[in-house]
């Protein structure tokens, strides 16, 4: 029996933009469907439309039939949390479903253990990190066995352990008959388990089965990265560096690929920290942490959920005061910060107004926006969004807009907290190119990210934050147990091909 059956579904927002056009698909028990598509293509809208209680306002046509119960995970981790007590939040859906008390308690223990978050049980949700919130909400969904599970980018903020736990949990849930729909840019791991893939594209939305995927290249609009991942996950398990390079070349025909040696730039130290110690009332976060960042260096800050990555960035920005130790910023350097939830950096009701307000306050010329649009393909979609309210943006669009704003105000050191988490694959590559272009012009980066793919493509150095202090690696030496897949090994092995922007004549930024 079909768990869900959608026929000719269309959705139009009150503003008049039709975001989903005559979409039809059905899913049987235990089937999984992956939603792929560019930022702002309607993935979240579709997921929310499928859950009656949270359906977005707008005009809908066609029919949606759902047999059984459903649960949804929102993209924004703050949206999923209701209570202050983590445990209360965990069991809330289960209690509402009328599950017996004994079962709830037993399941809660199981789920907490599986996701490795038993230590979060008694925590106040206000003190949880973004990733911890996301695991908690995910765990609370697995307390129940709904007939349909709707997940909006569940992997975006998870560390590797939590990702593995999630994937491990997904199989038995599927076998128990739960149909799953997942919107996710990080498709590597999920593609193997998915029976169907729904691809949103400009020419129309199509649902593909596994058989279709095998001949994927036959479809003109088929995103290239699906083909690559298809090849990687379904056929080639062990492939050589050469093959990896070829595959990577194949996925990005728009950009020329020039091998760049992964050498650290030989610049002056622009930002350094010595023996930094910091603790929250209940928790020691940083203990005698030292680091130094050179001009033009791209450093990736890695670490488990709740390790203190965001805290370190906020400390550097001066939002917190270190208990001991010192942060040194070279003269003439200015810090720019992209927060994990970029929504707080928007102050006006349209992006256009917001940008001009920002430029006016910083006494900069108003035509700077045009220059940025011309230079980086990442911001192409933003032009159409200029008159819209940032609060209505999709996750990926919001991230792009926040990055755009950050580049408007000439900062020389950029601290980015999970900037790529909601970006689609194409945007992520364009973003990676942008970072490298800026770094070549002397801008330094500290980037927090949970995407090894993004890290291996972009990083000069990798900082592992563990136990409150930092260990520095070169990317080619950095192999935590979770990143041992062949793709990453191949990418990181030697002088990997980093993508460079095609227009070689771009002048260095700043």
């Amino acid at each position, binding site marked *: 029996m079909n768990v869900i059956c959608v026929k000719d579904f269309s959705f139009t927002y009150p503003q008049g933009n039709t975001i989903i056009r005559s979409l039809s698909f059905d899913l049987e028990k235990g089937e999984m469907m992956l939603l792929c598509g560019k930022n702002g293509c309607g993935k979240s809208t579709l997921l929310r439309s499928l859950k009656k209680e949270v359906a977005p306002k707008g005009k809908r046509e066609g029919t949606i039939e759902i047999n059984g119960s459903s649960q949804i995970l929102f993209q924004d981790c703050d949206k999923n949390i209701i209570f202050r*007590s983590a445990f209360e939040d965990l069991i*809330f859906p289960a209690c509402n*479903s009328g599950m017996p008390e004994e079962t709830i308690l037993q399941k809660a223990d199981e789920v907490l253990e599986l996701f490795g978050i038993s230590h979060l049980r008694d925590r106040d949700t206000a003190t949880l990190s973004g990733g911890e919130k996301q695991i908690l909400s995910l765990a609370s969904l697995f307390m129940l066995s709904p007939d349909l599970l709707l997940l909006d980018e569940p992997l975006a903020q998870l560390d590797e352990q939590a990702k593995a736990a999630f994937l491990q949990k997904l199989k038995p849930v599927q076998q128990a008959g739960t149909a799953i729909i997942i919107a996710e840019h990080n498709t590597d791991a999920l593609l193997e388990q998915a029976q169907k893939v729904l691809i949103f594209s400009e020419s129309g939305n199509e649902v593909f089965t596994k058989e279709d995927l095998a001949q994927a290249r036959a479809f003109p609009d088929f995103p290239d990265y699906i083909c690559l991942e298809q090849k990687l996950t379904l056929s080639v398990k062990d492939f050589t560096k050469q093959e990896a390079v070829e595959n990577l070349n194949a996925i990005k025909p728009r950009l020329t690929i020039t091998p760049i040696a992964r050498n650290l730039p030989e610049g002056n130290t622009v930002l350094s920290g010595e023996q930094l110690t910091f603790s929250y009332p209940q928790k020691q976060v940083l203990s005698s942490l030292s680091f130094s960042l050179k001009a033009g260096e791209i450093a990736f800050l890695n670490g488990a959920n709740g390790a203190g990555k965001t805290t370190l960035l906020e400390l550097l920005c001066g939002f917190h005061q270190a208990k001991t130790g010192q942060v040194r910023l070279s003269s003439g350097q200015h810090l720019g910060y992209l927060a994990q939830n970029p929504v707080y950096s928007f102050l006006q009701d349209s992006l256009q107004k917001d940008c001009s307000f920002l430029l006016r306050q910083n006494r900069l010329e108003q035509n700077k926006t045009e220059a940025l649009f011309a230079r980086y393909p990442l911001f192409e979609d933003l032009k159409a969004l200029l008159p819209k309210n940032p609060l209505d943006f999709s996750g990926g669009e919001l991230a792009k807009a926040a990055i755009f704003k*950050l580049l408007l105000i000439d900062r020389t050191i950029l601290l980015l907290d999970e900037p790529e988490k909601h970006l689609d694959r194409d945007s992520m590559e364009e973003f990676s190119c942008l970072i490298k272009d800026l770094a070549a012009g002397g801008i330094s980066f500290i980037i927090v990210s949970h995407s090894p793919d993004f890290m291996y493509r972009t990083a000069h150095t990798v900082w592992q934050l563990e136990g409150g202090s930092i260990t520095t690696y070169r990317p080619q030496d950095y192999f935590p147990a979770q990143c041992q897949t062949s793709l990453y090994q191949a990418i990181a092995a030697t002088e990997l091909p980093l993508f460079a922007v095609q227009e070689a004549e771009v002048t260095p930024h700043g």
Partner: protein
Amino acid sequence: MKNNNYNKKSIYGCSFAEANLTGKKHTKTMKKLHFTALHPGAFLIYFTELLITCFYSEIAGLAVIFVFLFAFSLLQKKARMILWALPLALFMLVLNPIFYHGGQTVLFTLWDFNFTWEAIENGIYSALLILCTMLAFSMLGTGLGEERFLYIFGRFFPKTALMVSMIFKHFDLLGKSYTQTKNMAKMNGIYDNDKSLWQKLKTNSVIFEAFTGAALEGSIDTALSLSAKGYYSKKKTRITSYRFHVSDFVFIAVTTTIFVFVFFKPLYICLPATAVLFLIPILLGRSEERK
């Protein structure tokens, strides 16, 4: 609606109930008695005893109570709370001798009014009583905690308790988003070039507007999330997380026994009893810190 149990589970992890239900290794918690190990009801009974002692005690007893409660608030770093009650206490201390002139022991006479020792004593008593009541309630807050308070409250007013719980969370969220917005504005150089007061006010109003907008949006999200998680469903499970355990009974028995001695007339019995009764929060607080 009537059966919801949203606020029943909160500190379940620390209570004895868990150790019994799941058979987990909580032996450490079991050996040591601390605030969170107590059933909220047991704590409330104990607190009622404390309050009765406060109101029953003579001036000497109150002095002892004050010393212990103040020591507790110092140890919990909440001594600043006393500043709230201090003006009122001082007021009583001064006003009593001025307006009350009865009593046997006349100390001195001024403008035909007798200033008596009894009036001053009364003033001291009222001031101490105010301070002690204030400190005791502050101790109740520390010992019970927000979640356990809501547990008791929620037994009688489940709907309101849920709302209160969400309001608490929302205040957190409000504060957080205000700091975030302001911090981001600073980082983005929004403040840098504001010279005049008018300009500063204008910028601040922009920031305030943005932050309230985001906060409103946040409250809509919470409502959506509530309904997505099935809050409006009819059949719900109640989790009776706090259970009376032997330790709770022992605690009540011991405290009540001591409490009885407070009513003995001789000072050498009632004063030590009062002291021991008010020493308990200090001990509980200390053992919680060590945990």
